[in-house]
């Protein structure tokens, strides 16, 4: 679901940046007001989970891949505003360090995955939980919330892709940016997420939520004990397992490189051309393009990437937490 650069026009990206700025501002304000200071580092742990889950690519029939996001999980654990910030930072690190998702398209990606996904998932979870207040109801609410959350995000991403060929074409009728209209992009994206990624997201969310409630209930309920070591252990297991994401060798729908798109046959036949702006648009060389490091096997590079990304997220939010905590003490 990470939209690369040059799939959306700069104007589309601008619209999403304008939409995200007040959302980020409001989220930061809400988190500052509502989340206890000692829980701010947990946003980093949440972001680390999300980052790792996005590395587990799942194969989709038809040669593409998709992945879970974990947004609903963070939203249920720490609230949707904290989830918005956590996923935004995870996406930023993916874009800047790993070249996953475009720099220009960052705001659009954040809108889909850091805003639509956690908020949809969280409020559906709350709704079902209120209607059906029991242990089973809670579980079902988590499953359905996570499932609908990620599919809603996929739908938004598909619509963003789909409106590009309607708005931006050159004189020859060739699309300048993403070449697939709504009737191709929406089914392609939703198929992947309804069938595979949505189920993975729901199962992951429930499993990790149950694990966290069992080992460290303090994360959700303020009065109880908070233990981080088992959670770090879980993160470690996920890091070591991350090369499983390499088993799915295809590229996710809508994340092809310029050389791959000409041969793609989502339209029923080969596209046959490279959209102009994709061939000569904005380009950015990341430190680890596609989580790979030259000189070592892909799996080792994947683990190295996972370690660095996860640690960066945890460190960033620890520092933010201590800065906010310090400011409060002096005030």
């Amino acid at each position, binding site marked *: 679901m990470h939209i690369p650069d040059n799939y959306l026009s700069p104007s589309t990206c601008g619209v999403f940046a304008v939409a995200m700025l007040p959302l980020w501002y409001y989220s930061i304000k809400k988190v500052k007001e509502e989340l206890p200071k000692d829980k701010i580092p947990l946003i980093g742990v949440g972001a680390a989970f999300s980052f790792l889950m996005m590395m587990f690519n799942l194969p989709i029939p038809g040669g593409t891949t998709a992945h879970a996001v974990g947004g609903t999980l963070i939203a249920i654990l720490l609230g949707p505003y904290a989830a918005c910030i956590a996923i935004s930072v995870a996406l930023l690190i993916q874009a800047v360090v790993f070249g996953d998702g475009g720099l220009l398209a960052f705001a659009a990606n954040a809108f889909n995955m850091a805003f639509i996904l956690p908020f949809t998932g969280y409020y559906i979870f709350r709704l079902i939980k209120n209607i059906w207040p029991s242990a089973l109801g809670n579980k079902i609410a988590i499953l359905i919330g996570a499932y609908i959350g990620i599919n809603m995000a996929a739908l938004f991403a598909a619509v963003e892709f789909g409106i590009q060929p309607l708005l931006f074409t050159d004189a020859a009728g060739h699309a300048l940016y993403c070449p697939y209209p709504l009737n191709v992009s929406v089914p392609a994206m939703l198929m992947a997420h309804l069938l595979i990624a949505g189920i993975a997201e729901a199962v992951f969310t429930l499993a990790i939520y149950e694990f966290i409630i069992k080992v460290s209930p303090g994360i959700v309920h303020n009065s109880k004990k908070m233990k981080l070591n088992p959670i*770090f252990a879980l993160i470690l297991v996920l890091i070591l397992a991350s090369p499983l994401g390499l088993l799915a060798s295809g590229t996710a729908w809508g994340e092809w490189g310029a050389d791959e798109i000409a041969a793609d046959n989502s339209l029923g036949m080969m596209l046959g051309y490279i959209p102009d702006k994709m061939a000569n648009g904005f380009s950015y060389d990341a430190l680890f393009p596609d989580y790979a490091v*030259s*000189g070592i096997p892909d799996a080792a590079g994947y683990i190295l990437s996972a*370690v*660095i990304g996860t*640690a960066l997220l945890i*460190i960033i939010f*620890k520092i933010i937490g*201590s*800065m906010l905590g310090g400011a409060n003490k002096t005030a």
Partner: protein
Amino acid sequence: MERIKQLKHCPAGQGRNKMPAWLLQKDYYQPGHSTENFLNKTLLSIIAKMIIFRENAIGSKKSFVSASFKFFFVLLLIFLISLARSLLFLLIVLAVVLIYLCFLSGHRLLAILKPALAAALFCLLIMLPAAFWGMSSLWVLPFKVFLTTVIVALLAYNTPFYLLTKAMGGMHIPGLFIMAIDIAVRYIALLGNTAYDLLIALKLRSVGKNKRKYQSLGGIMGMTFIKSQEYAAETYNAMLCRCFTGEYHVAQHHHFQKKHVLYVLVTLFLLIIFLYTEGYLATWFH
């Protein structure tokens, strides 16, 4: 007692009339804006940083890894980082360092990362002209500087300083050199404290606008310098009285311990990773 009784019998207001009028007026004194931002932001903050050194000098919990090994390992690591030509080795070191940093508290993280990032930025600034000659790996050197600074900062934060001097003594580093470092670190903290106290005293005594504050600064620094001379002479004499001969001789008790095997394994592992990533082992693997 008589006087108090008289006062008590006085009708209200009679005593108040005796007060001078200016005492009854409300005071709306607003001190003029004094230009002390410079003082606060530069000197005080620099000196406050110096005091951090002292916290460091106090011993912490006994750690599993001995100070000598830490010292040796950090030196080796810095050496290998400087030698590394491939990015891969640096990235592996970065990953390990980041994992370690994850377990520190936020305040410590800031204290370690801030100087390291500043050093890297400064290095990048110096390297910037190279960009005009089309040097592509512009940021490798700043990256190396960042890594080495973080590693040294981690060592300093982890190990009380007296253990480090002991480790240096064990490695037969010349006594004069160790003494210079030892005394410098102690005195940076002590003199920082002296200067800090003097500055605070100056601030407290300058009510309102004190235009001569900067003239006093020279005095403070001069005073600190004189104090440093006194301290140094006294310390040196005190050390001589305690039989200090200028040698940091460390009695070497080399009893074999199980953890020494671990030290050797860790060092070997580091060397193998270095050699593999630099491509020296490629012939063995193929």
